[in-house]
């Protein structure tokens, strides 16, 4: 709980500091980082803690985003209502996919989620009358209206994002201490033991999957209004799914701050690369990918663990002790 409080405090500081920043580019970068962190944190709930590596989480981003935006623009359903429907749709999708695939082991589950993600993209592109096809849907902005998630200043989205990240982090922290979290830990270490203890493995797994989907969806709906543009190649793409997984791994799946640190690390690379090398694409993705390789080979517990080791080596007592789980 201490690390959770520390993280929330830090996010509050960032929120306050944002009022001192006027450059909309920097605020934009911070906003993107925040939402990537939300997705990484939600992903970690499923995959880091439970061990089912999902490579198709973008379905829980694309589906609610499209539901909300299409309802809003075509049928004038207010965004907040549409968002709830979108999140519900994501949960239903998770229940469906989860029931079918969670009994598969490691690589098989990963491949199945990957395929689900590809099918989703295919469907979005095909039903272009509703979804706008590959051109996506631009979100018309008429006037600032918070009930429709339309803010005219980037900072507002950043603040909402930071708040959401806090909520998600607190949820994940609370989850680990809950009975459900305990069941998940048992399942992860040994399914046989869990079964013997009477834990309903399939049900637990699906519930986690649905929770993860809901949190991811919540972030997605807000983010899409920040972008003001639904781009299927990005939202439903394979790359985003894989990147989300990689943030959490790079940061450290056993740490509450892991996905946040991973997302920040990734965006930092992007910004630095843009500044140093102009717009030569690929640096951010390259560094992210190879960082994962380095981390898996050397410190599988991630950057947070590295940071902790430095702090301890520096002689200071470890202030932020987080509940450690083996990243295996």
């Amino acid at each position, binding site marked *: 709980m201490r690390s959770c409080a520390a993280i929330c405090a830090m996010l509050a500081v960032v929120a306050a500091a944002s009022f001192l920043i006027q*450059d*909309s*580019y920097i605020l*934009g970068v911070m906003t993107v980082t925040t939402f990537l962190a939300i997705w990484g944190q939600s992903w970690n709930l499923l995959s880091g803690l439970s061990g089912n590596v999902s490579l198709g989480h973008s379905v829980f981003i694309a589906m609610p985003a499209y539901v909300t935006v299409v309802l809003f623009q075509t049928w004038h359903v207010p965004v907040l209502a549409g968002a709830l429907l979108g999140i519900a749709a994501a949960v239903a999708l998770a229940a469906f996919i989860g029931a079918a695939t969670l009994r598969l082991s490691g690589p098989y589950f990963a491949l199945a989620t990957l395929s689900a993600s590809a099918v989703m993209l295919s469907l979005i*592109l095909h039903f*272009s009358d509703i979804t706008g*096809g*590959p*051109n*996506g849907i*631009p979100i*018309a*902005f008429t006037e600032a209206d918070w009930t429709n998630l339309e803010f005219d200043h980037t900072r507002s989205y950043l603040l909402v994002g930071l708040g959401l990240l806090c909520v998600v982090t607190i949820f994940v922290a609370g989850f680990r201490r809950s009975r459900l979290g305990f069941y998940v830990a048992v399942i992860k270490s040994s399914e046989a033991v869990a079964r013997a203890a009477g834990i309903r493995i399939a049900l637990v797994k699906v519930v986690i999957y649905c929770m993860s989907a809901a949190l991811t969806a919540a972030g997605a709906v807000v983010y899409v209004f920040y*972008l*003001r*543009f639904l*781009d299927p*190649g*990005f939202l439903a793409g394979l790359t985003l799914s894989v990147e989300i997984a990689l943030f959490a791994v790079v940061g450290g799946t056993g740490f509450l701050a892991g996905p946040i640190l991973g997302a920040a690390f990734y965006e930092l690379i992007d910004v630095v690369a843009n500044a140093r090398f*102009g*717009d*030569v*694409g690929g640096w951010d993705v390259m560094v992210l990918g190879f960082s994962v390789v380095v981390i898996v080979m050397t410190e599988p517990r991630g950057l947070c663990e590295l940071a902790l080791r430095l702090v301890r080596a520096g002689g200071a007592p470890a202030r932020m002790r987080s509940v450690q789980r083996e990243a295996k």
Partner: protein
Amino acid sequence: MTGSIVGSRLSRRRFGMLSGVALSSGLLPARLSAQEPINLAVIGPMNGSNAVGGEMVVRASKLAVEDVNAAGGIHALNGAKLNLIIADSTDNAQGAITTTERVLSQQKIAGVFGLVISPLTAAAIPALIKHRVSVITASTADSLVTPANGGYLFMIGPTGSALGRVAVDFVRASNTAKTTNVTKAAILYINNAYGQSAQKGVEKLVRESGIDVVLNSAYPENMTDASPLVTKVARSGADVLFPLSDVTDAGLILTALHSARSKVLVFGAGSGFTWPPIGQSLGEKVNGLFGAAAWNWDMKNVVSDPKLVNVTTRYEKVYGGYMPEQAGEAYGAMWMFALAMEKTASADSEKLRDALATMKVTSGYPTIIQPGLVEFGANGANPNVKAVMIQWQGGKPRTVFPPELATHQILTPH
């Protein structure tokens, strides 16, 4: 302030010294300090399948900016020079939004040329409206010239439906002249803003001219193999094919047609049929191929003006290869911005927008755009520009239709 000092007290020499001090310390109003360069931005995909598009507009924009500066800069602003900001939109909408936002918020931009590919241009519009900077574009999607662009988009070339239309007009003319006897048409279009827009124009016109549309099929942007499409075309019994394509898909379709030894007449519309890559990848086999173009280096209005010929020849000399479609349009567009600055004696992006919306240019370098004048009408469309048909001859695209812009004869269809 200076007026009262100059009045009676100081000699002219002291006034000169004082002005010098005032100038360098920025005390004089900005209008008279000639050293501030004015930023114009060119944004487009520098990577990915449409990288050649980004490359050509950057080259042409550089040429135009150099020419403006060599001619003394913006005279109405005391010879202020233009400065070109180049940015990579990447080849997806996400990147286009981020890049445009970044470029517009990090420095003062008077105007933008871009973003080459219709979906990218569409994605950038909200940022342009927000920062009140206008874009002159050579993208063609009809959906771009609608009120949704807030008055900040000016399409210097013909629309996608006009490109499709010229291909159909060409076939009709050919049928009338009894050179061909086409009765069944197949349409294949890339499933993006450009393809959807061009397709509408083509389908309607084909039906109106009494030709049957036996196949009208979209294909995805990331298609890797066109042989099923070609088989479909064969299955439909079409005798003419209108492919509406970007760069890589045009290459895939044409090679699949070659492989299948298809006898179908092909009239392509879209960058894929007029930009350099198709000439490079097909080599000799490209000659005889027809394509609809928004601009071509050897149209009558260009070759009849030595100053314009000088531009296209210089481009060819510096970069090797003919001056491609959007390069010509970018060159004209940059000069439009310069002329707007001359007219308003301002580098303020809003004033320039207002000027562009009302200007009518009939002389100077913008006449590189056919038919030799540029003005923007409702929603930023160019009411006078016409698409042209080119035929590849001797490794270069030559203008063969319509007659008022054509400079070459048609070689017997392949």
